[in-house]
């Protein structure tokens, strides 16, 4: 069973253009799901639909196996969220901000101190949250999402405004929550490198369409694919003459000879024949996919 599942989710703000074009999200229970896409791809719109902040126009949303529309209040009892910027009451302290949510969720009061400790805000005392730094506000927003120990958490760009140390701490926190408490976490971001260190699953959205969905490992397997072989040689023309008999697509680029993706044995054979025919080989580079490139290819 999927923790979150959408079918053919479509949304348009005006009559002109669809922001979401049939999103079929499948988030397995207990995973950390990275929801990636460039700015304006439809990430926040999807999250807002999943939380009921936007009225659904077409498609279906199911969370914990229940229809979201029919059982919204019941489902939201087990959902925590941080969408866009944190919603803090700036005239109140961190504890007061959490206390007013504690009243609604009716969770133990001890949770307030627990989550403040988790995000490193235990010592903010009587300081109003309006006087917090951007990073502290973000941490408090995360604490608010975790207060009632939800089973599912939506975090929209959670590391916004955090310094490198803070980013590492929050990553570690998400891992711990996922591992120890089995919380399913959906993290949205527009930066792959930010989420690839923590997620187990990925959904990549571009122009309102889900262009990839699956385990991170699957994407990493694509990373291992060889894209091309680049040779640095003493005589480009002669090299091209030799290799083009076997690889007609071989060409020169930037002072190097570029061959299509070939096996290790084939590389060794070409190297041997070049040397035999008096061409010096200075460097052989196997060009592989990297995650960023895969991501960019998918979203462009």
């Amino acid at each position, binding site marked *: 069973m999927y923790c979150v599942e959408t079918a053919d989710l479509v949304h348009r703000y005006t009559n002109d253009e669809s922001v979401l074009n049939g999103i079929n999200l499948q988030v397995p229970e207990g995973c950390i799901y990275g929801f990636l896409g460039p700015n304006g791809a439809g990430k926040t719109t999807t999250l*807002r639909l999943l939380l009921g*902040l936007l009225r659904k126009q077409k498609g279906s949303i199911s969370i914990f196996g229940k229809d979201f529309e029919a059982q919204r*209040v019941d489902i939201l009892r087990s959902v925590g969220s941080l969408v866009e910027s944190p*919603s803090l009451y700036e005239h*109140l302290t961190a504890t007061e901000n959490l206390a007013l949510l504690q009243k609604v969720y009716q969770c133990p009061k001890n949770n307030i101190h627990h989550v403040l400790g988790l995000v490193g805000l235990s010592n903010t005392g009587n300081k109003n949250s309006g006087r917090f730094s951007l990073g502290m506000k973000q941490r408090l927003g995360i604490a608010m999402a975790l207060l009632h120990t939800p089973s599912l958490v939506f975090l929209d760009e959670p590391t916004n405004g955090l310094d490198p140390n803070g980013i590492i701490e929050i990553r570690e926190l998400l891992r711990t929550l996922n591992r120890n408490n089995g919380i399913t976490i959906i993290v949205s971001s527009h930066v792959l490198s930010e989420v690839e260190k923590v997620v187990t699953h990925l959904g990549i959205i571009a122009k309102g369409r889900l262009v990839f969905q699956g385990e991170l490992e699957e994407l990493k397997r694509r990373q291992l694919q060889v894209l091309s072989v680049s040779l640095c040689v003493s005589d480009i023309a002669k090299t091209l003459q030799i290799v083009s008999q076997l690889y007609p697509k071989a060409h020169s680029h930037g002072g190097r000879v570029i061959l299509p993706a070939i096996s290790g044995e084939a590389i060794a054979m070409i190297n041997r024949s070049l040397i035999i025919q008096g061409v010096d080989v200075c460097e052989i580079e196997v060009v592989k996919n990297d995650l960023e490139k895969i991501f960019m290819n998918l979203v462009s």
Partner: protein
Amino acid sequence: MNLPFTNSFQSEWLKSRRSLSSWLVVVGGLFTPSIVIIARLVRREKLHEIYAAEGFWTLLWKNSWESMAIFFLPMGAVLATSLITQIEYKNNAWKQVHALPMSTATIFFSKFAVILLLLVQFLVLFNLGIYLSAVIPYLLVAGVPYPRAPIPFGSFLNEDGMFFIDCLPIVALQYLISLRFRNFLVPVGVGFVIWVGALAALSWRYNFLVPYTYCMVDFLKDSSGGKVAIPDINLHAIAIGYFLLFTVAGYWLFAAKKEKG
């Protein structure tokens, strides 16, 4: 009582802590009594005569309510209502509120209940202020007697209740408008314009059609000298009617919003 409503109400009440609306209630409720105290201390030579009068409490009550019924209560209701909803807009918190496990009705009515409670708090503070405006000059100025006349609690409470009812349409309409518009100036501007319209309509025989006139007409009905048209109908009943109408319309518009937060 409905538990989610109670929980949500407590949460909403917490939000109003140290907010501008809660300060407004304190300052607005005690403003007129403070002016009365200062005026009496400045003109202390007349205090003996004033405090000895039979109708001391009724006169003090009338004097205090004059500015309150015409200006402070209607404008206080306009401002307090707009400021309460502004807490969510200002902190970009509507999205958080709507992502909580509460029905739309609970969200709407718990916030509304907080505004009404603030209005009650406003009246309680004002009543307390009136009492203090009688007692403080007596304590500070030597030779001033404590008013002999008993405090007419029953009639004062009754009038408080009527003024509260008179305010309900203002609160309901302001709530409706301030839930629709993010910009604070819209509800306050509309409220101010209707208040000015209400002042202008006082002498009109159909002034009861303007929902912001009831506090004014209620106060001026015995002492206007013919400048205010006193309708031959039950103003409080019309106030309750308008209140219900605006509340239902406000809830319908709130629930029908396509984008929440």
